[in-house]
């Protein structure tokens, strides 16, 4: 743990802890998880449970091994595990998902110093590793085992041109092929609104992200810009991944830049790229740029001089 420097009062007091923030995030993800249970069957929920358990276990094991303070009880590993599981299709073999968990928790989170030190979103790297390693397993979308009658198909993004407005409801309720947690737009919206109401996240990043993605997709001549918002992982990414405290800018203006930038990237990848989905790449690339965005949008304290230079010297 780093040394804490107590500055001059007044100090902000808050009852918020990492643990209850993460608990709120877990609650917010519940609608999507439950919806996936209806859509894809029990296996989807099983995958979510296994993934969170594995992540918590990995974090606990690693911290014990490295003789660090154990931070499993802050629930951040559970959130990461749930997000990893939400990004895989229901037919994913369990050991493959565990590879994603290892990449997320060990590679990105623990090796860089644990919670608060990861430079990109752990769950997205988990997804990326799985995508590059098990390309076919990650893109075999099926919904056949669910209560709702669904058939194996490409994600709506892969055949966006074939969609009509009549299929909007299907898309909104998630009755189509896709990863576990990203198909049901309604459930994700409920979770996102819960997070905003509980003031866990500010609505700036999701709104900028979704809005700019819509505008740029339209400008680039993508098919069905509005439809594309509800398809793929955009909503899930916008509410649960792009808003991660550690890997998003601190200032409000920074959040706007970040949101618009990743929206732009997502639209570029979706319209011009060879991958049908660009959310993962866009958010990860945005994450890497966050320190620079923070530097650019540094705010001036009231009555103070611009603290940039002093800060650097003080750091040394």
């Amino acid at each position, binding site marked *: 743990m780093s040394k804490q420097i107590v500055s001059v009062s007044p100090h902000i007091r808050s009852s918020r802890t990492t643990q209850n923030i993460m608990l709120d995030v877990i609650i917010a993800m519940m609608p999507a998880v439950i919806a996936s249970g209806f859509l894809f069957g029990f296996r989807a929920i099983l995958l979510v449970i296994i993934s969170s358990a594995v992540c918590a276990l990995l974090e606990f094991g690693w911290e014990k091994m490295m003789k660090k303070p154990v931070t499993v009880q802050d629930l951040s590993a559970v959130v990461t595990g749930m997000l990893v599981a939400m990004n895989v299709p229901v037919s994913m073999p369990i050991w493959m998902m565990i*590879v994603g968990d290892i990449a997320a928790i060990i590679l990105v989170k623990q090796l860089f110093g644990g919670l608060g030190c990861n430079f990109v979103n752990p769950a997205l790297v988990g997804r990326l590793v799985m995508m*590059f*390693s*098990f*390309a076919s397993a990650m893109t075999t979308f099926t919904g056949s085992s669910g209560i709702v009658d669904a058939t194996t198909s490409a994600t709506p993004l892969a055949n966006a041109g074939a969609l009509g407005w009549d299929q909007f409801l299907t898309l909104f309720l998630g009755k189509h092929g896709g990863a576990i947690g990203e198909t049901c737009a309604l459930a994700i919206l409920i979770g996102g609104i819960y997070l905003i109401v509980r003031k866990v996240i500010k609505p700036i990043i999701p709104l900028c992200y979704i809005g700019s993605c819509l505008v740029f997709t339209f400008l680039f001549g993508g098919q069905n810009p509005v439809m594309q918002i509800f398809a793929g992982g955009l909503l899930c990414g916008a509410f649960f991944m792009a808003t991660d405290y550690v890997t998003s800018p601190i200032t409000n203006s920074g959040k706007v830049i970040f949101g618009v930038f990743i929206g732009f990237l997502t639209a570029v990848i979706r319209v011009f790229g060879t991958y049908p989905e660009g959310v993962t790449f866009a958010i990860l690339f945005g994450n890497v740029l966050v320190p620079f965005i923070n530097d650019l949008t540094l705010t001036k304290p009231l009555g103070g001089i611009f603290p940039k230079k002093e800060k650097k010297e003080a750091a040394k």
Partner: protein
Amino acid sequence: MKEKLKIFTNGIFKENPVLILLLGCCSVLAISVTVSGALGMGVALTFVLVCSNIVISLLRKIIPDKVRIPCFIVVIATFVTLVQMVVEAFLPDLHSALGVFLPLIVVNCIVLGRAELFASKHSVGDSFLDGLGMGIGYTVVIVGIAVVRELIGNGTLLDKRIIPEGYQIGIISQTPGGFMMFGFAMALLVYCLRKKGKKFEPRIGCDGKCGSCRENCESRITDLPGQDETAEVKS
């Protein structure tokens, strides 16, 4: 005798060309996908390194200082061409596995670096030992990384299946996996060196004699007795 041994082991641990001096990383990342390829590359590089070190050490008084780099390259290229022709004739599989990286040994930083830093300043015997040590250091690292990458990434070892069919983690055998394993190997070696209490000197060609050194490096200020802990690891 002890000094000679030190020249030899220097290349394997303390000044490992790949993990400490960070030379020749390109071929390590590219070739360490399969163990057989890595082994071939390691042997080829060790051969070139030893031979070029010997010849350059023999010629060190004749080679004019101003054109030494072209001279080194001519010597190195000779041996690389030799190796390439032999491999192409007798081991066509290995030749296709190594591809462009075999002729690229000509400009491999390790070979040129040892010629410039060591062989052109030391006797033939010392240069031979240095070349051998550095070559073995390179081979150990590239084969080590290849074993891990082939086993974890593909489930095979020397083309024999160890982990049952259907197991494959593509990213480990792709480029990102190479970088990851490279980083892990580097961390492991530094960890072991620190554990052994050996002082870690990240600078190339640093002989620890700060008085005669023109470099105004950071370790010069911090490298005072009693502050060894802070002087460690600055790479």
